[in-house]
């Protein structure tokens, strides 16, 4: 169930939807599931508030994320390794309290509620937009299949070895956002740090 909640939360944040994000978080909390969000998704929410982005000037989504009890997964890379090691030395236990950057200091406006009339007028355009997106997904899928097929035919295993080598050496790149599943399998590597929001 936690995986489903995390998937849903991530999608709601990716879709820049404050209300759905709040609903997912409250439902999970109500049923005693401690769900987490990864750094990349949290940063996506932050960038969405920039000028020209879907939530320009609207910090409601960020506020929801920081107000709820979320665990942040932060991938350790060559870039931030020393910084995190220093924090680890200062803090004891598995959970780390980090005071490096406080998103809650951002000031912003609340999300505007959607009225029924506005929703009705948007429904038609949404369907059209949806159809074009579905078409795009199908095109991407077919393209990905062709690429995967050609890669499968020509791949002699070098790329996999290269990726594995990069992961072992901790080189930033594709290896930075390993799934938590693979990270949990090898706790000795200690690649992911959880951070609890403290309620005093």
């Amino acid at each position, binding site marked *: 169930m936690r995986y489903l909640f995390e998937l849903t939360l991530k*999608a709601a944040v*990716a879709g820049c939807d404050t209300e*759905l994000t709040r609903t997912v978080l409250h439902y999970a909390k109500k049923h005693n599931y401690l769900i987490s969000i990864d750094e990349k998704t949290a940063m996506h929410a932050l960038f969405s508030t920039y000028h020209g982005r879907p939530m320009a000037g609207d910090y409601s989504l960020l506020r929801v994320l920081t107000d709820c009890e979320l665990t*942040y997964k932060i991938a350790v890379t060559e870039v931030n390794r020393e910084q995190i090691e220093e924090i680890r030395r200062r803090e004891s236990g598995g959970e780390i309290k980090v005071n*490096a950057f406080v998103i809650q200091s951002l000031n912003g406006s609340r999300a505007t509620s959607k009225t029924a009339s506005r*929703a009705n007028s948007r429904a038609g355009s949404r369907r059209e937009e949806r159809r074009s*997106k*579905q078409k795009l997904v199908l095109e991407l899928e077919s393209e990905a299949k062709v690429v995967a097929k050609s890669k499968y035919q020509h791949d002699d295993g070098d790329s996999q070895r290269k990726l594995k080598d990069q992961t072992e050496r901790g080189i930033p790149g594709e290896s930075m956002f390993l799934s938590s599943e693979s990270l949990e399998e090898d706790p000795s590597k200690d690649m992911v740090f959880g*951070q609890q929001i*403290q309620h005093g």
Partner: protein
Amino acid sequence: MKNKHNSILVDFKRLRQIDGEDFRDSYVQGGKFSLIEAELAVEQMHMTLEGQGRISDLRDLPVNSLKILLGLALTNQQEYLFDQVCLRLGEDIQPFLSSF
């Protein structure tokens, strides 16, 4: 009064790199979905909440969007939609993990 303390560790070089990646693909527990698939599920959920969702719309949704919609229907307590998505997903009901 609650004294809340919350923060996110940010490395600014990393932050710029994430911005460049633009969230085209998102990895979740061994699987991944694209931003478009997430948006499709969110839009479908909105249409359902507004009473304009049609079950026939589910036919056109990609599998990853259906998986996201399953979670959205559950958390928004839309039982009928949840059942319909379950029917559509069939054996693909596991969100990305065989152990789920």
